[in-house]
């Protein structure tokens, strides 16, 4: 039976991986991800989880081991953060390009320099084009549920792609929260063992993966990957619906908050949505028509769904916890601007860079962002459309 428990968010993800009955875990510890893999190695050492725990010498090797294990048909889990994800970068593309279902928890951490172990989303965003399904979670319950769902999504024959579950380093990873945990029987019903594809690596029927691809095949290969990502939206919807029907917790690509009559909305991903909700409440008390859109799915990007959701909005204030130096703003901001460029009706889109390297985004700072975004409506535009919200000038 499902049970309400208090659990550290990192341990919620370890518990979900254990309940998913993973076959292989290959991981290298790195702050703020360490607690996830510590707990998993404990489960294996104590005989609570019958899995191969591979101690590797680097994250590059961790992902390489996951790739091999997934190719033979194992259910595979790993976790990393920040510099670890950067070191994995090369292998991330190989996992996706070879269409290997792997579930990875990313405890989002800032990239060096300076040596900063705290949370922002610059690690995953530096690898956003790796071909993985990328989901962002806000709290322990989402992390727990998303991890279980991720295996089902990744291993679906129509998808066959790796999935990254992102959640903020420290702000979410190290927080103890109440969750409704599922038991083994419930998880078994939702998530049966992985179906091994007929083409999985096996000595009896040899296949070749990732051979040389001359210019006459690369375009077709990449086009196929694009299709797989696009189509995965349908499967994600199906799996989230099935999970909701079984356990009562329904998820969507977005979680709107007080959006019904809103004219302005904050749009962002991850743990700071909790603070943004309080800012929305305070502004609502003042009579401002403000709402929040929490974005859960970054890849594949829910394009037509976002257009539909925002059709009555006048201003979208997008808060990014990552940016591209010398570029056109944060990754969510530029994505949304590109999405709306060809739309006849579109909101003013204003970008804010905030929460870098673990700097908290306070309620009053969200309120400042909304006030500033509102001015864009009166023609008071920000140079290049985006600004650093918290920088000392």
């Amino acid at each position, binding site marked *: 039976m499902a049970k309400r428990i208090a659990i550290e968010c990192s341990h919620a993800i370890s518990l979900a991986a254990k309940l998913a009955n993973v076959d292989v875990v290959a991981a290298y510890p790195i702050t703020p991800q360490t607690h996830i893999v510590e707990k998993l190695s404990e489960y294996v050492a104590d005989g609570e989880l019958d899995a191969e725990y591979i101690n590797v010498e680097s994250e590059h090797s961790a992902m390489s081991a996951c790739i091999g294990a997934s190719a033979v048909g194992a259910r595979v889990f790993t976790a990393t953060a920040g510099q670890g994800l950067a070191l994995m970068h090369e292998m991330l593309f190989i996992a996706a*390009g*070879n*269409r290997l279902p792997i579930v990875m928890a990313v405890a989002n951490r800032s990239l060096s320099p300076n040596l900063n172990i705290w949370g922002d989303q610059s690690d995953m965003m530096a690898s956003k084009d790796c071909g993985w399904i990328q989901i962002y979670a806000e709290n322990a319950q989402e992390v727990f549920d998303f991890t279980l769902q991720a295996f089902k999504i990744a291993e679906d024959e129509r998808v*066959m792609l790796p999935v990254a579950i992102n959640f903020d380093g420290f702000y979410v990873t190290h927080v103890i929260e109440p969750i409704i945990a599922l038991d083994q029987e419930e998880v078994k019903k939702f998530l049966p063992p992985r179906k091994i594809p007929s*083409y999985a690596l096996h000595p009896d029927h*040899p*296949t*070749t*993966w*990732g*051979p040389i*691809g001359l210019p*006459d*095949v690369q*375009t*077709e*290969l990449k*086009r*196929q990957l694009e*299709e797989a990502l696009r189509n995965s939206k349908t499967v994600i919807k199906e799996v989230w619906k099935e999970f909701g029907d079984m356990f009562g917790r329904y998820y969507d690509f977005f979680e709107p908050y007080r959006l019904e009559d809103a004219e302005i909305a904050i749009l962002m991903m991850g743990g700071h949505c909790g603070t943004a909700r309080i800012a929305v409440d305070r502004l609502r008390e003042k009579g401002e028509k403000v709402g929040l859109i929490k974005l859960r799915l970054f890849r594949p990007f829910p394009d037509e769904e976002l257009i539909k959701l925002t059709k009555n909005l006048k201003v979208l204030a997008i808060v990014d916890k990552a940016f591209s130096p010398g570029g056109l703003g944060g990754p969510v901001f530029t994505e949304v601007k590109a999405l709306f460029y060809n739309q006849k009706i579109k909101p003013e889109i204003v970008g804010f860079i905030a929460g870098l390297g673990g700097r908290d985004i306070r309620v009053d700072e969200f309120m400042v962002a909304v006030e500033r975004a509102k001015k864009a409506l009166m023609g008071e535009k920000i140079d290049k459309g985006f600004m650093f919200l918290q920088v000392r000038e």
Partner: protein
Amino acid sequence: MEKFKLNPKPTWKELPIASMIPQPATSRFYKTGDWRSFRPVVDKEKCTRCGLCWVYCPDGAIRIVEDGSYDVDLDYCKGCGICAEECPVKAISMVEEVEE
């Protein structure tokens, strides 16, 4: 030998998942000889049958002929010229491939 079943110019929909090759040992069907711009030609009079060309060929494209001499498997020889360089009696010359 099993026949090569893959479509050499598949559309993205025909391409096997991840462009995986579902059949083993298909490199045998992949004739790399057409990369060659120079072809080694063995002078059987000069050849002492020492076999160094066979030893040095990085592609295994030198074959031992029944009379004990050596010739070149032009299906796979990429024309690198290592055999001509290594031959101690200079019995191998590299002749430019000319389209006819």
